[in-house]
């Protein structure tokens, strides 16, 4: 047999062995940092409480609310049909099935929006798409949807429209009686609301 064939065989084996020393790249599925940064810089991930309320009321089938608070907090109070994925178990296998479902908009929320945003960054690094953050979190939900502030008399008609939407949503979510809004109590409410306008006007 020709010697060349032996050399060739040895060379091939050496090269094949070289595959073992190639650096391991286990994170190839993850978003690369520059792309992640690019999507972070854009504010499109934020969804207002009004939009979320509207989606819940209209029973939007694409809505998937994800509560990233702890299990205790979740069991105490959560939004309608929200599922609980505590921030610290975001990467566990059982929960990841809830993310990245085609056609669903996963919206993270927490008490505020910081924790939800951190969950978003982590999920985005893992390569999930169609994920969003509810701006202002539950605190904002309470301020805007459950107890909306009545706009000033000089406010634009859009603000009044928004207010009436929020008022309706409030009744929807709390199951309050429509009669509660009767004129008898209205005078009292007006006085209280004026105090609050400066605090939360303009939303969260």
């Amino acid at each position: 047999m020709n010697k060349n064939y032996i050399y060739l065989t040895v060379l091939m084996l050496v090269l094949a062995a070289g595959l073992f020393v190639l650096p391991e790249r286990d994170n190839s599925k993850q978003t690369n940092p520059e792309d992640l940064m690019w999507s972070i810089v854009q504010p499109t991930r934020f969804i207002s409480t009004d939009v979320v309320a509207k989606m819940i009321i209209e029973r939007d089938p694409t809505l998937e609310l994800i509560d990233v608070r702890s299990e205790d907090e979740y069991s105490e109070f959560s939004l309608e049909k929200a599922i609980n994925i505590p921030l610290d178990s975001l990467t566990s296998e059982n929960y990841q099935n809830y993310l990245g479902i085609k056609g669903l908009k996963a919206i993270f929320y927490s008490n505020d929006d910081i924790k939800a945003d951190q969950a978003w960054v982590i999920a985005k690094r893992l390569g999930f798409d169609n994920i969003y953050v509810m701006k202002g979190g539950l605190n904002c939900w309470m301020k805007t949807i459950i107890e909306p502030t009545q706009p000033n008399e000089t406010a634009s008609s859009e603000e009044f429209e928004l207010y009436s939407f929020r008022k309706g949503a409030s009744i929807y979510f709390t199951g309050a009686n429509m009669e509660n809004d009767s004129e008898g109590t209205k005078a009292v409410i007006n006085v209280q609301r004026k105090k609050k306008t400066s605090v939360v006007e303009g939303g969260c």
Partner: protein
Amino acid sequence: MHIHELNPKRTIVTLVIFTAIIVIGLVTLKSPRLVFNQPLNETIEMAVWDEGSVFPYELTDVINGNIDTVLLVDLRNTFEFAQGNIPGSENISSVELLSEDNIERLEDHKTKGMCVVVYDNDQLHANGPWMVLRQLGFDNVKILLGGYNYYKQWADNLDDSYSNDAYFKGTPQFDYNEMASSANVDEDDASATKTPITVQRKKKTNVAEGGC
């Protein structure tokens, strides 16, 4: 008879070329410019335990120039930066944060043991960039709670902001259950009262004291 056996030189030439291509390929194997150096579970731990945050009142010494191991980085755009910023801060907008020059400088600061404190208008806006830097392995990068908006409010008496909690995020401001139950919806006073929150306030220290 095989053609190679007629001309052994040819085989050697082919072999050399073959090896050369493989070697060149290995040498020029391109690794991505930036990789996540922080394992995912550490990132999550960092988020859960609120690590790496700087309280506004901790900045007084930095602003007064008593400490030079801390670099303040303003992540807003030049326009907003020009309208007002924290004294001594440098402007690197989020969009350019990962450019080669800036990464080089951040690495330089890291090797020098400098602390980098990033801020935006509020904590939320700085959160993403801060997390990315942390995940890239810059563990000397911290985030300013409350952001510029809070600072602006307290600029004249930053030290006194110690007793003001407004920069704290993540705690419920209301008793959700009580507020969202139908009985309470129109009795604003009863339901809108803040539930007492016990916040663990960090001992008043300077940023530099604990190192980065």
